[in-house]
């Protein structure tokens, strides 16, 4: 498992290949978040961010068959088309890989302490993000992530 909070850009291809070297891996699902339209500065809570992301990954591992996982989230100044976040999940089969990848992104959006600021001001949190994270609750054998 790799969790990194960094200023630098990342290479999704390199990260994905790194998770497909185990011959037991049959599926690698990934998500890349990209800056849309306007430049922004991403602030985070240095002491907490890494821990929060690791906790989300652990939660995903408890729910699905996750063989390995990489999460990279950038902070600092980012321009349109810059990559912001990468989630890669390796599993034996696609169902687990897709679900865990989407779950990690949904929870990251509501649980990881990052804040976006644009020239027009701070970006407001969206209710739809809470709803997206909330739909994972109440599934059989699941519990709410604090």
């Amino acid at each position, binding site marked *: 498992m790799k969790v990194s909070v960094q200023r630098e850009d990342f290479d999704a291809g390199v990260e994905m290949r790194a998770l497909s070297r185990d011959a037991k891996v049959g599926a690698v699902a990934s998500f890349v*978040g990209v800056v849309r339209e306007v430049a922004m500065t*991403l*602030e*985070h*809570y240095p*002491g*907490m961010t890494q*821990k*929060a992301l690791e*906790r989300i990954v652990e939660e995903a591992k408890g729910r699905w068959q996750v063989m390995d996982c990489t999460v990279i*989230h950038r902070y600092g100044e980012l321009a349109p088309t810059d990559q*912001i*976040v990468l989630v890669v999940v390796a599993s034996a089969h696609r169902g687990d890989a897709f679900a865990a990848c989407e779950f990690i*992104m949904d929870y*990251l*959006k*509501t*649980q*990881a*302490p*990052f*804040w*976006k*600021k644009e020239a027009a*001001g*701070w*970006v*407001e*949190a969206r209710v739809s993000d809470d709803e997206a994270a909330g739909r994972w609750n109440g599934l059989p054998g699941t519990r709410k992530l*604090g």
Partner: protein
Amino acid sequence: MKVKVLYFAALREQLGTPGEEIELPAGVGTVAALRSHLRGRGGAWELALAETKLVRAALNQDMAPPAAALQAGDEVAFFPPVTGG
């Protein structure tokens, strides 16, 4: 008892400080009570931490509910709902 309090993003800007050490008065023993205590400073504090404002909290770097109990040496953080990803 003393706790460390941190403020992030819009809240840090509105309050004009990234954080402080606070000696808690008797009776201030939870995250919610601390927020209410800070609101009592008036001005920007009253506005930014008003009950109508969505403010999240973390206790020792884990998301914490308002009822979370405080202990000496704790690190409490207040911030707006997160917007990463």
